Structures are given as structure tokens and as C-alpha cells.
């Protein structure tokens, strides 16, 4: 028995060292920096609450994450539904159409939007060609650009999670509902939709949590008015060199992530056990 214990410890040791030294310990440093100077102090938090900029950015980040999540779920769900209800032979090919953009890095997908929305970009060219506008209009460095790109980047995650729940739904249940007199619409609303909700919840939670921490897309596509929490942390570190303030902001972001994760666990307790 003790040999088994020793073996388990030995197997875990490298992982514990890696995660301990380069994940937990540094996070602890952030906590320390925001709460101690050198004794315990809430000065940084007081500064946070008194800072209109920080409060505005926090509110903006939360609203953006929420908007992007709702948009991704609403637009992604029918796509997942289409995939799940198409013939198995087509399905495998069609799923790759969703995975293809998903496999490309966020930096590159953000860059593609710079090309599409730029002054000389496609959208401006088309709009001018059709005569809808006279000169190039400002699309880059706007909230619209950030929203479009983030939905495009995160929607595949929502689609894939919804889809994998949907294909597990027993087709017989839908047929039973139809046999019992339900219209296709009713069968969908009363049987299929509720059964697919766990996938929607997982996809939405992942989308929301990832949105909260988005850095690259707002930095490249958004203007000054689209600075998000991650960008503000970067700014405090590299421009104002105010590390304790950056640490407090990081702590807020961490807390928001954990709260979102906790809420999700609470709402969806029926999770596959991980262990």
C-alpha cells in the first residue's frame, strides 16, 4: 500500500513542481502585491473603487462578455442544430467547416478582420462601389469590429459544445412526441430544446469566461473606447508601471472568472464527472 502511495507521489511530483512554481506561486505573488505593502492594506482596492476609469472598464468588459455570449449562442445554436440533424455521412465533413476557423490562432483571426474592415478593406470597397457611402467609413477601431471578431472567434466553441450534446439526444423521443400529436415545432420546443440546454449552458459558460479575459482582439480592433480589463492590466504594467494596481485589476478578473465558473457549476450540476 505504501509503495502505491509512493508511486503516486512520484508520478505527480513533476506536475506539482511545474504548477507549483510557475502557476500557484506567481499567482500568490499577485495576491500579495495587491494586498500587502508590506503590511496588510486595502489601499489598492480603495484606489480601484475610487477610479472612474477602472470601474468603467470593468463594466464595459462585463457587458461585452455578456453581449458576445448571447450573440454567439443565438447565432450558433441553429448552426449546431443543422449539423446534428443532417445525415451522418455529411455531418463529419460539415463539422470540419466549423473546426477549420477554430484551429487558427486568435491573433491571425483578429488580423483577418483588420484586413476586411480596414479603410482599404473589402467592406469599405463594396460599400463605396455600391454607392452607399462616398468615402471610406471608420469600421476599424470601433465596438462593432470588436463584437464581430469576437463572435466569429468564439462561436465555433458554442457550436461544437451544443452539437456534441445534440447528437446524444435520442431521436426516438422526438418521434414519440410527433406520434403523440405534437407539431414539428412543438416537438422541438418541448423535447429537443430542453434536452439540448446542458450543451448550451456549457458553451455559454466557456464563451463568457473566455470573453472576460480577451486581450488581443480589443487591443487590435478596438479604439480607446474599447479598452477591456486585460488591456488595462497591460497598460498599468507597461505604461504607468503601477504594479499593485495591475495586480488588483488581475484579482478582479480572476474573481469574475471564478464566480462565473461557480455559477455555471451551480446551474448545471449534472456534469460528467471529471477525475
Amino acid at each position, binding site marked *: 500500500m505504501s509503495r502505491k502511495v509512493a508511486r*503516486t507521489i512520484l*508520478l*505527480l511530483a*513533476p*506536475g506539482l513542481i*511545474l*504548477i507549483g512554481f*510557475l*502557476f*500557484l506561486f*506567481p*499567482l500568490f*505573488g*499577485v495576491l500579495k*502585491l495587491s494586498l500587502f505593502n508590506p503590511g496588510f492594506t486595502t489601499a489598492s482596492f480603495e484606489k480601484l473603487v475610487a477610479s472612474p476609469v477602472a470601474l468603467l472598464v470593468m463594466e464595459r468588459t462585463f457587458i461585452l462578455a455578456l453581449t458576445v455570449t448571447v450573440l454567439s449562442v443565438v*447565432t*450558433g445554436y*441553429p*448552426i449546431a*442544430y443543422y449539423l446534428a440533424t443532417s445525415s451522418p455521412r455529411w455531418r463529419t465533413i*460539415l463539422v470540419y*467547416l466549423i*473546426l*477549420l*476557423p477554430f*484551429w*487558427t*490562432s486568435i*491573433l*491571425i*483571426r483578429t*488580423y*483577418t*478582420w*483588420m*484586413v*476586411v474592415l*480596414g479603410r*482599404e*478593406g*473589402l467592406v469599405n*470597397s463594396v460599400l463605396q462601389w455600391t454607392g452607399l457611402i462616398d468615402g471610406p467609413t471608420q469600421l476599424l477601431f470601433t465596438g462593432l469590429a470588436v463584437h464581430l471578431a469576437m463572435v466569429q472567434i468564439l462561436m*465555433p466553441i458554442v457550436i461544437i459544445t451544443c452539437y456534441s450534446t445534440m447528437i446524444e439526444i435520442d431521436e426516438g423521443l422526438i418521434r414519440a412526441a410527433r406520434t403523440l400529436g405534437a407539431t414539428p415545432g412543438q416537438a422541438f420546443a418541448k423535447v429537443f430544446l430542453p434536452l439540448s440546454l446542458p450543451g448550451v449552458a456549457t458553451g455559454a459558460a466557456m464563451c463568457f*469566461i473566455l470573453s*472576460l*479575459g480577451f*486581450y*488581443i482582439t480589443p487591443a487590435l480592433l478596438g479604439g480607446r473606447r474599447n479598452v477591456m480589463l*486585460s488591456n488595462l*492590466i*497591460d497598460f498599468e*504594467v507597461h505604461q504607468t508601471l503601477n504594479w499593485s494596481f*495591475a*495586480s488588483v485589476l*488581475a484579482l478582479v*478578473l*480572476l474573481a469574475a472568472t471564478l464566480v462565473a*465558473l461557480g455559477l455555471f457549476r451551480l446551474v448545471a450540476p449534472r456534469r460528467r464527472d*471529471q*477525475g
Partner: protein
Amino acid sequence: MRMSPARLALTVYFVIGVIFLIFPLIMLVPLSFGESQFLQFPPQKLSWKWYAEFFNDDSWLRATLLSLRVGIGATIISLVVGTLAAVALVRGQFVGRGLLMSLMVAPLILPTVILALALYILFLRWRWVDNALALTAAHAVIALPYVILVVSTALKGFDITIERAARILGAGPVRAFVSVTLPYLMPSLFAGGLLAFFASFDELIVTMFVSGGLETLPVRIWNDLKLRLDPTVAAVACMLIVVSVAGMGLAEYFRQRNLRRYHNS
């Protein structure tokens, strides 16, 4: 079979959705093969100019080489560390197993900028900034969750009685694992390794914070995007899209192979 109007509408919607997802990526192709700085329709003249620019520019090549080195290093570290940990996490019976699992996959969910800030503060104190080895270790933390998730899923599907049989036949625990379980895990190790590599290869935020003057490929692209919009980036991006789609597609294929075996047994 004729389509119902509802199904037809849904098909149209699906096509529009796929175009929205893929179209921006496809836009890069004409730009990267064009002559001019800007996107032109139709492209006036085809040229390899921007691709040549990449291969003739020392800074692009150095950045690519560094990304490869860091990526391979991070893959090896996370693959070894992650596989050992996955074995303990799946087979061990101890208190806090679930917590430990969550901790080791946490870098996947944690907003990257938090880890970037935390590592930056630490590396400054340790004088690890501007150090390729330290960067590799940091990337290993980011790559670790992928290995743990893929390998532990495969291990759960493995019938442990086969390994026990090897033990009864006289093999030691290590030998039994290496000659029986490891071959079974191979597809998942490939999949996990590929995912780990691309997690490192695409990583930007942590690298920007801790790398000092070192430029990996994503950092090089980032610096270019901040200063100017040069179609060389389009050429680089096109090549990267091909590489990552091939790599991730392969990873998906290997992952599915282990999963399918699990479902058949």
C-alpha cells in the same frame, strides 16, 4: 428527397454562418499573392513577393526558429509531466484528486493576462526575463492542460486488466506500463503533443510579458500589426493557417482513434 421550406431556410442560414466563420480567413489568400500593399479586386498581378519577403528577412526567420524551439521544448516537458500526472490522477485513489485535476487544467480557463502578469513579476525577481529556457517552462504550463485532458480521457478507456496480466506474467510496473499501456496511448500522446505544441506556438500574451527582447513568431506578427499593415503578415498568416489546420486536423484524427477504440471495446 425534397427539402421542407423550414429545412431549406436552415440550410441557407448554415451556409451564411459558415461563410461568416471562414470568409475572413480566405480573404488573406488574394492579399498575400497580390502585388500591392492593399487588397485589390480582382488582384491585378499574382506574385510571390510577400512570401519571398518572409524568407529573405532575418527577423522573421529568427522569430520562427525561436517559436519552433520553444514549442518543441514546451511540448516535451508538458508531454512527460502531463502523462505521468494523468496516470496518477486517473488510477490513484487519494483525497483532493479532483482538486488537483482542476488545478492542473486551470491554465486553460484562467485569463492569460493574469498568468502573464504573475510570471512577469516572478521572472523579474528571478532575472528570468529575456531567457528562452524560462519562456519554454512558462509555455509548458500553458500546454500542460491539453496533455492532461487528452491522455486522462484515453487512460479512462483503457482496460487495466491487460496491464495486470503483464504484471502477473512477471513484468515490473514500469515495464508493464511501457510495453502494454504506452503503445495503446500512442495516438493520444501524438494528439496531446500536437495540441501542446500549438498552444505554445500560438501563445502571445505571456510571451509578450516575459520574453524581454526575444521575439517569437506571434510577437513578431503583433509588432508588425501595431506599426503597419504589411502584406508579409498576410503571407505568414496564410502559411500558419495551413500549418495549424494540418497539425490540429492530425491531432483530432489521433484523438478520435483512441476514442473509437474505447467505444468498440
